[in-house]
Every structure is written in C-alpha cells, then in structure tokens.
C-alpha cells in the first residue's frame, strides 16, 4: 500500500506524513501533553519507561510521577490517584501490564471501574529482537477477561492520537496498546475514531478481513488489493477496539460475505480471532480463518515484520485464506445446487 501525502492540516505547515512520522508512542507522548495542558486532572505515572520524563516530566513535573521499575505499584498508585478524582495515564510495556501486574490491573483498576488509562508499548512482536521476555502476544487474551476494561489497538500514529482523544472522557478504565518502533501510516487523513466501532477501511462483499494492530491492518489492505486482482472483493475492518467488540459489524460481515479472515500480532489463542469466533458462532455461524502467532514461544531473533512473517502472519497467507473462503463458498453452492437438482430429478421420476 502506498501512503499518500495529500492533506495539509489546518493551522500547520506540516504535511500529514510529517505530523504523524515516527513511532506511535512518540505521537502518543505529544498527544498526552496536549491533553494535560487542557485538563489539569491529567497525571502521568511512569515506570521508568524512558521518554516521558523529558516531555511530560519536564513541562509538568507536578503531575509526573515515576514509581520506578515497579509495575504492580504502578497499577495500585494509579488506582489510588483515580479514586480521588484525578485522571492518571499509567505507562509500562504491554507484557508487563497484562502479566506481571495482571492482578493489580484486574482488582484495583478494572474491578473498581476507575478511569485509569493504561498506555502500553511493545505490543505484539514489536519488541522484535528483544526476545520472548518482551514479546506481548498473549496480552489481549489476558486483558479481554477483565470486565469494565476498554481495550484499544491503534493501527498507526494518527489513529493513536485520535484514540487517546476519543477515550479521554470515558468513565471507566482504558488500555491503549502501542508498538515500539515506527510503523508505516495506514491512513492518509486523520481517521475518525469511535471507541467500540470497527472502521471499515475497504468495502467488499466476497470475504471479510478483520485485522487489529499496525502490521496486520497494513497486510489486510495489501491483501485486499491482491485479492481484487484475482477477482475477489474483500471487505477490510480495522478492529481497533478489542473490547467492547463491534459485534454488529462482525455479524454483518458473517451474513454478507463468504467468511472472515482474522489477522493479529497476537496468539491465535484468546485474541481477536478467538473473539470473532465467540461472536459469530453464536448468532451467524460462518467460516473463520485465524491468522496469528501459533501457540508456542518465539525464540527466533528478528525485527517485528520478520517475526510476524515467520510466525505465519503475512499478506500472502491472508490472500490464500481469502481465496480458500471464497472457494469454499463456491463449493457449498455447487453442492447445494447438485443436491437440489438431484432431488428435483428424483421427484420427476416418481
């Protein structure tokens, strides 16, 4: 997919691409600071992640708290701050939020429905060569089990900005999952972001691709283009909110297309693909092909894209699964027609 630099943002000399250049977390830090300048209740709670102390911490030291390398304490302190009426943004890595501090996040933040925004980086395989201690491919599975928690996975830097702004006033807790290194822009204009509503990036009525996260969404868009050259029209949904899930969009996809391919930088266990299956099996059974990280630890050394492709998360596999779903539906129809024809034939003999 090519990224066009079409739009000049009002009031700025920057092009869209310039404005949203860099990693999602860089754009996030700028957005948080903008938010904090307008809202004196916004606090920044850090676990020595690096980068917040020189931005937020320098400009607003009275509202910057570094609890040190202590993720359990991060969650409890943030819950305490929020209980008094403040709006803390708590920062750590995704794997550490979901696993190490899982219980504090569950009991103290989600359990009390407190408006803490837990903003995590290094989601999925974005920590790349750092290795499996830093990979977060089970985070969504864990976090999805927490009632009250809104879970958001922006697809690029522009969407990150919009997600932060759109979730700022939600009454309950929110987790925003970002990556580490820069990823290409998915959007070429500032996207509308409605929490809990999937963004339909491409229309289509043969198959549906549902993706979450920067690389999966980019791969889905590329697969859409390749499938189009093969005569398959693929709908692409950017499922940026994992919880609450946009069940209406999924049920429409299940009823209107031959099947759903899910794409995520997360285990096939418990993540987006599992969540989609939970929805469609109940109300609109349809074939679902889950593309994600297999159920095993990854000790391969590589960057994010390399690890994803090695794990089987690639444009090629999305295309192959899309073709397979379309073919399966053709076979179903052919079988049904033959069945119908043979029944018609037998009744004419009788």
């Amino acid at each position: 997919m090519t990224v066009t630099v079409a739009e000049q943002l009002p009031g700025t000399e920057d092009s869209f691409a310039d404005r949203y250049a860099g990693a999602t977390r860089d754009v996030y830090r700028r957005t948080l600071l903008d938010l904090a300048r307008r809202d004196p209740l916004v606090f920044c709670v850090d676990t020595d992640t690096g980068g917040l102390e020189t931005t937020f911490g320098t400009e607003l030291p009275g509202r910057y708290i570094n609890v040190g390398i202590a993720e359990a304490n991060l969650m409890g302190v943030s819950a305490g701050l929020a209980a008094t009426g403040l709006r803390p943004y708590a920062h750590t890595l995704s794997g550490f939020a979901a696993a190490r501090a899982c219980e504090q996040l569950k009991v103290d933040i989600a359990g009390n429905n407190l408006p803490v925004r837990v903003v995590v980086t290094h989601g999925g395989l974005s920590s790349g060569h750092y290795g499996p201690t830093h990979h977060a491919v089970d985070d969504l599975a864990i976090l999805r089990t927490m009632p009250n928690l809104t879970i958001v996975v922006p697809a690029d830097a522009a969407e990150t900005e919009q997600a932060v702004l759109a979730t700022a006033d939600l009454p309950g807790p929110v987790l925003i999952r970002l990556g580490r290194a820069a990823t290409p822009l998915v959007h070429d204009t500032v996207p509308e972001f409605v929490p809990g509503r999937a963004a339909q990036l491409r229309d289509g009525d043969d198959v549906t691709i549902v993706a979450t996260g920067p690389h999966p969404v980019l791969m889905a868009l590329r697969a859409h283009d390749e499938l189009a050259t093969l005569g398959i029209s693929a709908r692409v949904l950017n499922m940026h909110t994992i919880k609450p899930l946009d069940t209406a969009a999924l049920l429409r996809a299940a009823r209107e297309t031959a099947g759903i391919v899910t794409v995520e930088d997360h285990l096939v266990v418990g993540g987006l693909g599992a969540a989609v299956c939970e929805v469609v099996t109940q109300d609109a059974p349809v074939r679902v092909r889950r593309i994600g990280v297999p159920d095993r630890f990854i000790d391969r050394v590589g960057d994010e894209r390399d690890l994803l492709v090695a794990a089987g998360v690639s444009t090629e596999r999305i295309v192959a699964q899309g073709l397979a779903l379309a073919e399966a539906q053709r076979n179903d129809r052919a079988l049904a027609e033959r069945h119908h024809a043979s029944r018609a034939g037998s009744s004419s003999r009788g």
Partner: protein
Amino acid sequence: MTSLEERARRVRERVLKMGTNPHGVHVGGSLSLAEILTVLYGEVLRVSPEQPDRPDRDWFVLSKGHASAALYAVLAEHGFLDPAELDTYAQAGSRLAGHPLRKLPGVEFPTGSLGHGLSLGLGVALAARRTGGTSRAFVVLGDGELQEGSVWEAAMSAGHEGLDNLVAIVDRNRLQITGGTEQCVSLEPLPDRWRSFGWAVAEVDGHDIDALRATFAAVPATPGRPTVVIANTVKGKGVRLFEDQKKSHAVQLTPRLHQRALASLNAGRTT
C-alpha cells in the same frame, strides 16, 4: 460516650458473633485489630458516615482484607452501617463479604489479595500532596502480608516521595497460617527494614489504647517521611483459647465454642 475500651470489647463480641455463620470468620487477625481500628475510627480518621465521599476526608485501607469482620464491627460502631446488618456476614446476598466490597459505605477499596493496599494508599496520599489537599491515607497491613514483594515496591516509592501524609500500620501478631512469621520467612529486623526504605518507625503495644492514641496523634513521626506504626499485637487477643494460636486464623464458632469464647472475652471485662 462509650469508652474506647468498651468499644473494642464490643468489636470483639461482634466478630465472634459473625464467626457463628457456617463459613466461620478470620477470627485471630480480626481480634488482634480491635484496639487499632477502634482508636483510628474513634479519634484519628477524619471520616464521616454522613459524607463518606467528602473530598478532604482521610482514607482508610484494610490491606489485610481477611480481617473484614473487625472493620464491619467498627463501621457499625461509627454509623456507617446498621449493627443489625452484621448478622448477614457471609450470608447469601449480604454486602458483608469475607473480604470487603467497595459497595459498602466506608470501604474505599476492595481488598483481600494481599500486597495491594499500600500502593492504593500511596496513590491517594500522592494525589493529596500534588493537588494541595489535606487528606491522609492510613493502611493496615498484616505482618505476614509483608512477605508480598509488592508491599516493598510501594514502601520504596513512598519513602522516595517523602509522603508524610501516608501511615502504614502493621498488625504485628507474629503468626501466619503455617505458624510463626519468623519460622515461615522472617521479617526481622522489621523496624530497620522500614527505616532503610525511608520511613519513620513507631513501635507500640497494639492493645494499649492510650499508647495507640499517643502514637497516632504524633504522626507523622518525622516530618517529610511516611510513618509506619508497628503495632505489637496478639493474634486472637481477648479470647484466651484463641490467643497466640495459629489455629485461630480462621474459625467457625459452633454455639458451644461461641459461648466459651464470649465467656472468656467477658471474664476480662473491666467496665
């Protein structure tokens, strides 16, 4: 005005009554808290049942949530709930769970999983400090609970921040489920450990009401530091057959046991 001694006795009596339900009660660690909670609610905490959410209140966190029965008894003593509701403890549909729920007025945070409370109190104390508020946070910890690493994450952070509006109270009854704390994983030298984390330490007899009163009146023990009150207590205090017994951790009081326990409690009655 009922004396604090009599209130503490009544707290114990009510804890024993709650223990007659079929699920029993964490009796030992509830009885050891009777004077601590009575003095805190009677003379120290700026809280009001009429306005449990007033922004300038003090915050109380029972980090050792399994001693909920003692908290409920004290909340009933101070008008946060009707004493008659104590009879519903642990019953189906009750607001009084084995570990406290936030839907109960006066309960700021649900606790029970050990090692959470000090971080919560730290967050509240930090909020007051950074916004110019006058609230203080009081967190009651079990001594066995101090084996949770998360306690020391919070202790290190609070010491660093120098939060003198944060007070931790350790119910130092020296027993946990399998036996002595020092036999399980030793906590001593406990005062030195807290001091080395930047805390001011006050040691007190946790059953001496006048001593508790004086200690709490003097917090922060050192300006610019959080205070830990190490309250030396006896698990099961007030009921001879439960005192200093590891078996008193959780007990279901049969009618006969309840009568014996009440007799023991009231034999020591001075008023």
